[in-house]
């Protein structure tokens, strides 16, 4: 990477994706969610982008790990840290210029994790009425928590109806015999009815 490119870098405070970038990366996030839905997985698409490169993406891994904290965002954050490690880059300076694109509002836990890693911008589709940490249940994104990383900006509502529809379809699929399979925090039942 040349010095010319480095000097073009905007100050961290001004970091924000353009309309065109949002459009482009949310298409990718929704494609991921659709793929997940087609293979019977929780339809949440989630990717993290640094300098126009996907440095982390994730899908919900709660059931296979038996670890209820393995939400797609946590998986993606782990990949970002690994990516930095492989390139011997300072995680903080990468995270400060990395945006998260996700089809559903991150939960309270994931929102706090994003703060702890100084992610500045989160673009999401539909609200998460059950667990949302960007205002739906608690506003972790802007709360006054000086020891819990930094606040982040939320850009919400991108293709929200479509994101909800996918969750609804997933719920119907999961119950062919009227019996509930593994219920994760992201399953539709937990999501809308608990």
């Amino acid at each position, binding site marked *: 990477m040349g010095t010319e490119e480095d000097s073009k870098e905007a100050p961290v405070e001004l970091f924000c994706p353009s309309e065109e970038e949002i459009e482009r990366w949310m298409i990718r996030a929704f494609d991921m969610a659709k793929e997940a839905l087609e293979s019977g997985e929780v339809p949440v698409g989630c990717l993290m982008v640094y300098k126009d490169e996907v440095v982390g993406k994730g899908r919900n*891994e*709660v*059931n*296979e*790990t*038996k*670890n*209820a*904290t*393995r939400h797609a965002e*946590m998986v993606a*954050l782990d990949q970002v*840290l690994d990516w930095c490690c492989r390139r011997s880059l300072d*995680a903080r300076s990468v995270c400060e210029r990395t945006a998260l694109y996700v089809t559903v509002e991150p*939960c*309270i*836990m994931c*929102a*706090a*994790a994003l703060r*702890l*890693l100084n992610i500045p911008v989160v673009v999401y589709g539909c609200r998460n009425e*059950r*667990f949302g*940490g960007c205002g739906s*249940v*608690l506003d*972790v994104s802007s*709360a006054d*928590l*000086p*020891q*819990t990383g930094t606040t982040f900006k939320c850009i919400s509502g991108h293709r929200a109806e479509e994101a909800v529809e996918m969750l609804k379809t997933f719920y119907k699929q999961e119950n062919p015999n009227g019996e509930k399979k*593994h*219920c*994760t*925090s992201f399953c539709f039942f*937990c999501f809308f009815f*608990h």
Partner: protein
Amino acid sequence: MKRWKGPPCDIDSWVAFPVLSDEQSQDVELVEVFAAPILDKKETSRIVRELNAFHPLSGLQHVKRVRPCREKPHPLEVLVCLVSDAPRGKVVSVDSLLPSGGVNCNGLGEPFVVKVPARPPLTRPQFELASQHWPTSFHEDKQVTVALRGELFSRHQKERMQAYMASAVTAARAGMEVGMEAVGAAVVDPKTESIIAVGHDCRHDRPLHHAVMVVIDLVARSQGGGFYSFDGYPACRFTSPNSLQTEAGSQPYICTGYDLYVTREPCVMCAMALVHSRIGRVFYGVASANGALGTKFKIHARKDLNHRFEVYRGVLSGECENLHSVDDHIRKDRGE
């Protein structure tokens, strides 16, 4: 310089207090109500019956309608209506409050304003404060009352709790020796009185590896799951439960029925991770500035989340306090 190992701590040196919801711990909120003296005691039951029909004081069912008066010329006082429901006017009289003839005002004196508790008391301290304003009924939760006195746990239970927190403290020290923040945690099965997992903060290797996140993954590993390897940290350990309990391993809410002991109050991420993991109860040593189980938020007591749990603060508080003050010194020395 503080020594690491002192004599074993006495269980009388600490008290576990419950961390209650805002509704249970807030001050008594008051609302203004018109009251009037009952001048003729014989009229009381009729007045109360007619007032109940005319001004039912809905929402104030916890407040008694009539109170006895000791040091006043009249024997009793009765609540007439909420100040906010009274017709507006400069001169307030019984007739102006009860204009339409639904209540016969015989035997009632001139009205005055009193403040009564706006909500039913949920704890004994709230009940005692509320009763200073107006007689109030109280459906006591005995366990909460005993817990608020710090007397919920027996000596045997306190000994067990102290042993679990001591293992979290030991783990925290081991973590500190390898450069981590001095936070330790242990997950316990209270039915078998056994430790399932114990671990410490690993955030200098992995920023999100707070002690609570570490032990949640260790519990998952103990049941055949888990994602990370903490093999490099001998103080992060787990014990697989016996085969009788393996059916519990088929669901992701693997902390169901387990207790967590953690040396300091968890942050928002860790608190919500405990909700997702369906932890049974949480015990912590000392509060933390951005803590989410009492200090900044009460994640465990939110009605809008799908899992709630009891939280107690103060277990082995002296040792936990030492741990964190030593940790602060080290960080200051490092210039962090």
